């Protein structure tokens, strides 16, 4: 067979073997490069998704915080008019909102955590105090209770401002 003789004389089998090795190595390099490229793209996508999740959570936290402060202001108004029955419901609602805020934002600083815990405690002792006064038939000192609420509103408002500023910084950083 002349073609087989020609192939043998020109060492085409060796050349094909060398070419095969070169192609295999090139293919391997291209595959590794593609894998790394898709991995870094996936990582970037995951990081972006994480950041979006954090931002959404941040907006939700700020919104819940604003709701908590609004309820506190409402409680102060109810204190002024001595609406005890409605108050007890509002205390419970506010406590739930504040507990929810802490669960929504696990990354808040310890100082913020302490301030929220302090507000929850004020509220719990307030609820207890108003319940006791109600059962004893003596009106609680609402002026004093409003002073304590104002103190906690100031603390929570400071946290809200810090959170909003942090959210804006994060949002600017992601652009």
């Amino acid at each position: 067979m002349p073609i087989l003789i020609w192939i043998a004389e020109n060492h085409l089998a060796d050349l094909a073997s060398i070419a095969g090795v070169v192609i295999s190595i090139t293919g391997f390099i291209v595959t590794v490069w593609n894998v790394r490229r898709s991995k870094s793209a996936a990582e970037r996508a995951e990081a972006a998704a994480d950041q979006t999740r954090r931002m959404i959570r941040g907006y939700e936290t700020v919104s819940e915080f604003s709701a908590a402060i609004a309820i506190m202001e409402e409680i102060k108004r109810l204190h002024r008019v001595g609406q005890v029955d409605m108050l007890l419901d509002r205390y419970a609602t506010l406590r739930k909102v504040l507990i929810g805020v802490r669960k929504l934002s696990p990354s808040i600083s310890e100082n913020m955590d302490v301030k929220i815990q302090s507000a929850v405690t004020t509220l719990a002792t307030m609820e207890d105090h108003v319940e006791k006064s109600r059962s004893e038939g003596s009106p609680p000192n609402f002026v004093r209770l409003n002073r304590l609420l104002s103190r906690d509103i100031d603390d929570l408002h400071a946290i809200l401002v810090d959170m909003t500023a942090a959210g804006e910084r994060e949002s600017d950083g992601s652009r």
Partner: protein
Amino acid sequence: MAADKYQHLVERLVAKTDRGEVDWKEAAGSDTFQVSFANYSLTLSVSQNREGSTLYVISILNSEGRTVDSFSDEDLDDGGGRYYPIMGELYHKARRQALGVDKALDEILGQLDHPF
């Protein structure tokens, strides 16, 4: 066992209050003061036992504001009465800090010593 922990807690609170490392605040209950940490709070209040004697009561509140435990100076003493003055002193220090008594006195004294 629990009494040991309560005693330890009171002693640490006294030391930290003396060094101004805990932030006592007024609580809603009358004659009650509170100090908060990241997940728990303590309230310190004055009460009376069945015989009408003064009791100092510390309550532990969890992150939901529920009282999970409370004890008084009587629970720590085993009849010795050692913790009554300690908790009484702690109560008065907490009160002074929460109401800002020392801060007010320092400022007034400062202005008296260095008038305009």
